């Protein structure tokens, strides 16, 4: 009735060749786009062949880029934080308000940083203790923090002391200080994420939080520390922005959360968590700066620039999803 065959041993699918593992990943796409963007931009304007010009352009986005590095870790852990730009504004406003009211500068700076930490703690508390989805929490606090900044600062600019101004013009070995901070942060966080147990556990939580808890990983503690770090780094970025602009208004960094998310996504961070690298976000930050500066040099209307960034974001998300679905089951 039926041919009885000796069943062949079920063969395992072969492992992917090593070169594929290394090459086929979202960061490669970011790198290729970066090279293309550099090439295209240098056709538009010879300025783009000048490293100094690119570095100066980068100072305009460096604060967002720094926060985007931490945001990358938050997203890999399976959460999101949309409040950092508002956090930057509120901590900068508190700092500026305090020093204007006569508080000594070191204390005013400490107030700004502490405020950022508290804002991160509020986000973390609601996400981790009250179990509210982080996207809802941080949309709420994004509005709240920005609103508080406006309450404190009104709609006027608060000046900061002259000596505090111009962190972006301080050059160390020809590199603006803010850019240098970004590069150093990238290296540190890159090492933390890829080489330490803390980093490893961030990926594990983002991949499967239930399994992580069962394996004895203290996921709540790790997530809380990420939200705290996010708050603190946002405040630092807020003060850096205040220094660059020379004054603080409630609308400092307005809309910055989208640029940060864009950098993370463009760098191949997976929006559902568990995948992504600091290297990707690092490359994406440069890509974004070159694309937007390039468009400005080419006299592309701001509205059209926005369209291009939107398209870039969508394309990057699709490409990332595609690559992950093809290479990992």
């Amino acid at each position, binding site marked *: 009735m039926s041919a009885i065959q000796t069943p062949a041993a079920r063969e*395992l699918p072969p492992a992917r060749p090593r070169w594929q593992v290394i090459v086929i990943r979202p960061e490669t796409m970011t790198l290729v786009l970066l090279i293309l963007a550099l090439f295209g931009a240098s056709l538009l304007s010879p300025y783009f062949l000048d490293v100094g010009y690119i570095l100066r352009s980068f100072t305009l986005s460096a604060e967002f880029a720094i926060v985007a590095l931490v945001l990358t870790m938050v997203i890999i852990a399976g959460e999101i934080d949309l409040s950092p730009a508002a956090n930057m504004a509120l901590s900068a406003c508190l700092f500026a308000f305090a020093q204007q009211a006569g508080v000594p500068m070191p204390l005013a700076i400490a107030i700004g940083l502490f405020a950022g930490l508290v804002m991160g703690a509020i986000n973390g508390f609601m996400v981790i203790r009250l179990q509210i989805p982080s996207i809802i929490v941080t949309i709420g606090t994004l509005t709240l923090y920005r609103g508080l900044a406006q309450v404190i600062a009104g709609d006027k600019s608060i000046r900061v002391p002259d000596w505090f101004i111009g962190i972006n013009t301080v050059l160390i070995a020809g590199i603006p200080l803010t850019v240098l901070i970004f590069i150093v942060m990238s290296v540190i966080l890159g090492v933390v994420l890829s080489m330490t147990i803390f980093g490893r556990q961030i990926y594990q939580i983002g991949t*499967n939080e239930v399994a*992580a808890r069962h394996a004895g990983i203290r996921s709540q503690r790790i997530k809380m520390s990420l939200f705290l770090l996010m708050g603190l780094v946002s405040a630092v970025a807020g003060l850096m922005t205040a220094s660059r602009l020379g004054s603080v208004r409630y609308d400092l960094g307005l809309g910055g959360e989208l640029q940060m998310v864009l950098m993370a996504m463009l760098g191949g961070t997976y929006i559902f968590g568990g995948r992504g690298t600091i290297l990707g976000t690092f490359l994406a930050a440069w890509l974004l700066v070159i694309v937007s500066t390039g468009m400005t040099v080419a006299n592309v209307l701001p509205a059209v620039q926005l369209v291009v960034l939107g398209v870039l974001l969508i394309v990057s998300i699709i490409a990332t999803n595609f690559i992950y679905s093809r290479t990992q089951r």
Partner: protein
Amino acid sequence: MTDTTPLISARGISKHFAAIEVLRDVDLDLQRGEIHALLGENGAGKSTFAKILAGVHRPSRGTLTLNGEPVEILNPIVAQKLGITLIHQEPISFPDLSVAENLVLGRGDGGWFARVPWAEMTRNARALMDLLGVRIDVTRPMRGLSIADQQMVEIARALASDSRLIIMDEPTAPLTPKEVETLFGIARRLRDEGRTIVFISHRLEEVRALCDRVTIFRDGNKIATDTIGNLTDADIIRLMIGRPLKEFRHKARAQIGDVALKVEGLTLPGVFHDISFEVRKGEIVGLGGLVGAGRTDVARAIFGVAPATSGTVTVAGKRVSITEPAQAIDLGLAFVPEDRAAAGIFRTLSVEENISAAVPKQVAPAGFIQRAVEKALAQESVRKLSIKLASLRQPIGELSGGNQQKAILARWLLTDPSVLILDEPTRGIDIGVKAEFYDMIGDLAASGRAILLISSELPELLALCDRILVMSEGRLTADIARADATQETIMSAAVPRTARAGVAA
């Protein structure tokens, strides 16, 4: 009965997923008015074949004829129109819709904006339930129903679309014996009406009680089809595994030592009550009972995943309070959870990383991961447990279920636990690998570890355990010594004594 054309004839059905052939040239005829069992190990191809009949998968090669006419079953909707219904083990339904609404799902009569004929729908639903002889209020949402009742609703759905072929994929696993009897009664009536029923099960005694013919699958091939009366249990097992099954080795009795884990009066209201027991070093204690009796919840409470609200846990003579798994691990406890995909593996991460997940201090004494140490640990585990893989760096999701489970066990062995809680460790694993697991569990006990083994498979409990605890409806109902343990003593303690509300009469 005069018409002898089979209801469905399958010829040369093959199916592959990617490069892996899961079904090879299957020829099978299903007659009208028969209950036909599909048997085989996990992964033998029986479920794939059933899903091809139901339009869930499309065959890579081969033809199907229905009543002598060639048909192409493109998708489940086509299958339903042809009169083929697949009843899932865990019924797929819309829990917030009423029973009556669930009954008419997928039957898009009328347009998008057609009026919903509520009264008629309810009337028809009641009629169907009466036909089946089950008392379910059809206006209630599905959410509150027992699994047995949800299955009845699925069967009613099959009747509503006048299905001629009803496929039941392991329907009895979550049911109590009484519910199983009800289900069988209905299945027999449907057969007597001339419908065909395909019954997929692992339980030979059920197949024997219910089915007319059996077809046995092994490694994607159809091995044999015969009338149930012509085959002995030993024949069936031999055909299923292709070799005589060596008797499960009654493990060498380990030296039983001090109490390693003691639980007293553990209670989580509404889930389990007043649970007390102890497990000694070298002892394998079974925890049996029906699905939903609260066994997994007790394990989760001990391990700190969802702690109990009262009661005490004592580990190695010391009273402890465990509120999260990390503490349990520090105390030398390990827990292999039942749901591997949800609570065990990190699907997209490497095998290596999955194996080392619970021992960060071993792979990174100073916080920085020592790749060489990790690799050595993982390689050693792979060798010891003979895990089959292509590379340590491949995502664990690419491994077979049995090898994933071995990797999870390997993870816990690295923590060198003194108490090991195994929750359905062999679920979804081929018989061959199962035997390896049994040997491993025996060896682990022999090396002085205390083992709490939760299992729904009675032969597994009987073969491995020194003592068997039984839970029913959140309470411990028996503590049976190995000498007194039989399938009957375990089952009689597992079956709830008070009829639950909502259980099919």
